[in-house]
């Protein structure tokens, strides 16, 4: 089953978790996402690079109190794609519910 707005790039489980976290925040520290999802830095960097290449996330490198921080945020395009994806998931669930025999 598929629905309009379904985004295969976002749907991959790790990326879905990353985007769902980012959708609730203006920005998020790289370390927060890494710790929440229990990923290695390289694994998270790889997923973020994929999302960044698609234009879904923006990555900002900052120097704060002599510490390097990496802030990640969802772009407008990413926000819209995520919302469309969630709508598509809901539609799939609703359609399946409608099709269930009584």
């Amino acid at each position, binding site marked *: 089953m598929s629905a309009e707005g379904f985004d295969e790039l976002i749907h991959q489980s790790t990326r879905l978790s990353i985007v769902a976290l980012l959708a609730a*925040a203006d920005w998020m520290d790289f370390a927060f996402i890494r710790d929440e999802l229990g990923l290695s830095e390289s694994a998270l960097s790889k997923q973020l690079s994929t999302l960044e290449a698609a234009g879904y996330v923006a990555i900002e490198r900052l120097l704060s109190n002599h510490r390097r921080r990496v802030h990640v945020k969802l772009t407008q395009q990413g926000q819209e794609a995520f919302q469309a994806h969630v709508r598509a*998931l809901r539609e799939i*669930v609703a359609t*399946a519910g409608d099709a269930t025999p009584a």
Partner: protein
Amino acid sequence: MEHTITHEEAEAALVTVDRRRRRVVEEIGLPGWYWWGLALGWIAVGVVSDVGPAWAAAAATLIFGAVHANVVPRVASGRHRTQQLSVKAELAGRRTAVVVVLAVAALGLVTVGAGFALYADGARDPSIIASILVATVILLGGPRLLASPWLRERSG
């Protein structure tokens, strides 16, 4: 390319989305330094009220109020409990700020009431005792108040 998934997979994905969103909602709160600053400021005003002249107590109360009024707008939204993320404004809502302001006002009344009660009871330093009691409530209860399921559910 068309990707097909079952409705069970779609449901599982929606559960993941909801869980991640709730995790961010859990981050709504005020930074630890705010509660410590509020508690220490409260005690300072209590000490000045008991050991200083009346004008010093009035000045300390005014200064404390002014500093607090300056700090609250920056942190009371609850969106920056830590430096690790900024919760979206629409998720944090205005409830956190309203709860904080009402709680501080209520604690002010409690402090005055407790101070009078202690004074009537013959306590030597009623303002200091009352302010320490309220400061303890602030440190123990402040973070818990904002972590209450009631506030979380309404933010969600």
